[in-house]
């Protein structure tokens, strides 16, 4: 078990390395980073000075090796824009994004799982149709548009919640809804499909033949099995959410990692972008890894040889 955890961990590292190499190549290949550092009003003199200072005249591979060496010791370089250690900036912003991501995935799960179960228990019923309809409609609403509409309705018209910022829990309500609703259809559908499949499984028939009551059949026997793929999906979705928080954070002016990413893109702050891509991918890898462990705990078939 330990050996395989290690192997899995090694694989995760390889994935992270590949992602970082690809992104480094992409980012540093395009354009002269010195101009980005110098900023909008900088003169030509400034730019030449910066090129020399940061060593952008060196081969890309050397620059990557340099970066990687630093990254391994936790030093992700300095932000060209803030001139602060990237590690500091990113960890500073991550809190909001992780909070938002956790809230959003919880929102999605709390909404989607009961809906999926209800839909599966009575296929083709009104509940099922409503759930399917919601999921189809939900998938088709662009989140940026949805966010703006929510601001107009709930913040401006009704004045119930603040439009932007992250000062209190109230500030998180709208972003959570916008970020969470997008994952809801997928989770709902998987729960429904899983439940449908499980409910027609032989062991559910066995459970019914044992005379167990419906609640026990649904929640002890069926949901436990149906939820296993949902865990994996939720992990993947959570990883996506962190990356997808860019749009939401920029609309709601949440100063999280997503907003930082967007801003870094518009100001060409490559070390921060590079670090964020790495961090987001690490999160994704971490979540899927945890989901695998959780699944192993839930499903003894995966656990014991």
């Amino acid at each position, binding site marked *: 078990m330990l050996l395989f955890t290690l192997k899995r961990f090694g694989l995760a590292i390889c994935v992270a390395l590949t992602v970082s190499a690809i992104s480094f190549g992409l980012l540093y290949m395009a354009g*002269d980073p010195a101009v980005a550092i110098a900023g909008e*009003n900088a003169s030509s003199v400034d730019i030449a000075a910066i090129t020399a200072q940061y060593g952008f005249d060196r081969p890309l591979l050397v620059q990557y090796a340099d970066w990687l060496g630093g990254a391994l010791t936790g030093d992700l370089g300095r932000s060209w824009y*803030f001139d602060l250690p990237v590690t500091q900036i990113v960890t500073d912003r991550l809190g909001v994004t992780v909070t938002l991501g956790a809230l959003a995935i919880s929102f999605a799960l709390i909404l989607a799982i009961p809906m999926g179960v209800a839909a599966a228990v009575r296929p083709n019923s009104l509940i099922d149709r409503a759930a399917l309809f919601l999921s189809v409609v939900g998938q088709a609403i662009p989140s940026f548009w949805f966010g703006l509409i929510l601001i107009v309705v709930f913040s*401006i018209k009704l004045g119930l919640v603040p439009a*932007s910022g992250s000062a209190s829990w109230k500030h998180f309500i709208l972003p959570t809804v916008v970020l969470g609703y997008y994952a809801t259809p997928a989770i709902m559908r998987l729960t429904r499909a899983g439940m449908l499949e499980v409910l027609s499984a032989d062991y559910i028939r066995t459970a019914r033949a044992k005379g167990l009551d419906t609640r026990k059949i649904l929640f002890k026997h069926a949901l436990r099995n149906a939820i296993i793929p949902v865990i994996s999906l939720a992990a993947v979705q959570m990883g996506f959410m962190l990356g997808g928080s860019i749009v939401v954070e920029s609309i709601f*002016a949440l100063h999280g990692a997503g907003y930082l990413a967007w801003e870094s893109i518009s100001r060409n702050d490559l070390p921060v972008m590079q670090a964020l891509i790495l961090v987001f991918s690490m999160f994704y890898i971490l979540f899927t890894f945890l989901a695998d462990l959780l699944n192993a705990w839930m499903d003894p078939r995966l656990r014991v040889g």
Partner: protein
Amino acid sequence: MTPARMLLGSTCLALCAGMANADQASGTLNLAFSKEVETADVYFNTAREGLLLNHAIWDGLLYRNPETGAYEGNLATDWTWIDPTTIEFKLREGVTFHNGEAFTADDVVYTVDYVTNPDNGVKNLANVMWMERAEKIDDHTVRLILKAPFPAAEDFLAGPVAIYPDEYYAEVGPQGMGVAPIGTGPLKVAELDPGKHFVLEANEAYFDGPKGASAIGRIDIRTIPDVNTQIAEFFNGTLDFLWNVPADQAEKLEAMGRYEVVNAPAMRVGYISMDAAGRSGESPLTDKRVRQAIYHAIDRQTILDALVKGSSKVVDSACAPVQTACAQDLPSYEYDPEKAKALLAEAGYADGFTIDFYAYRDRPYAEAMMGFLDAVGIKTNLNYMQYAALREQHRKGEVPMTFLTWGSNSVADASAMTAEFFTGGPQDDARDPEIIDWIQQADSTTDKEKRAGHYKQALTKIVEEAYWVPLFTYNVNYVLGPDIAYTPTDDEIVRFFAFDWK
């Protein structure tokens, strides 16, 4: 009025009714930046917001009176030109920094020495590299030695060159200053969350300078990138003042009748630069007639009226009218698409041509220009990109035609613009030796009239040759909440210390 219209109207009513108004009571003025400021250290940021903080937290030796345009003493009480490259300053006595450090000549010397040292990596070298060094005469007298005669020195000293406390800066460096700024200014920093949140408080011990003390005790600045979100917060009363509001929104806000909308001119000038020197390869733009055709083809006044609006003006100068030595009596080309077509035909492009067109801001303006060019047969492929990327390509000479703007760092001298674009540097698309020569002559003389003459020569030739199509000056819309009193100025600088409650 259709039902939908009425619905819209009622939305507006609801908006207005839902407004909170607790700010005056709490004594806090709420403002928003629309971008994250990289650092509060003014020498290490290039953002407009940084300049605003500069004026609030620090002081320069001089101050430019926004109403008269005259230079007044600020940290210096008096100054004299000893010779074309030496200025002597008499410093104000009894001034202390926010941390209690006393302001002396040492602070000036330290600041000048620090920022002019290339090893320290100051970002806006153009702001400081004209200074050679500073010499302390006594505790309150200092001499500034220039590298060469520099007519715009006073403007820079009233603008970007802030004076830092020498002991504190030596101790914490740019990073420390970035997160815990210390200056002499009318406002001091109470809280700072880098890039996200600034809280300024009135400096009770502010000296009796031309800026004046802040009437408002506390200013809270958040970063809200989206204009709509800003306006939404403004409606909710959680923002008290907006600036850089786009023309259309400003009009609508004004029409609501509850808010004061002030439009002020800005130093920023928009222009189209064309690759007349042929750096990007064989191009129709090397032909003067083609460039003139483009000048004729674009209806600058209509763009201004429909999109830019406000106090902007169409210009033909490659600099802003408010800038010193920026002559305005220049030749021009009226909007005349027929003439444009004729010129094109004369140049051998009767059927027009297709060209790459670059831009980095104000996409609607760029699109409008493209529409006009299209009407005379010039098809354009828009490449809308980040400023850094565009500038990089421009510097490499790969950009045939681009819509750019330049704000001159609010330095009110023509050289802040022409030096960058017409002196043979990497962003000089004209590479006209005559113009280069005139500008260099102008910038090395202290004779103001002679200087103005050279500038006029250069600016005239730029128009005659149609190296650029200067478009218009920019303007800024300021929207004031119902209980705010503030008079915006025409230099794109929001003076935080000049706000007051009604």
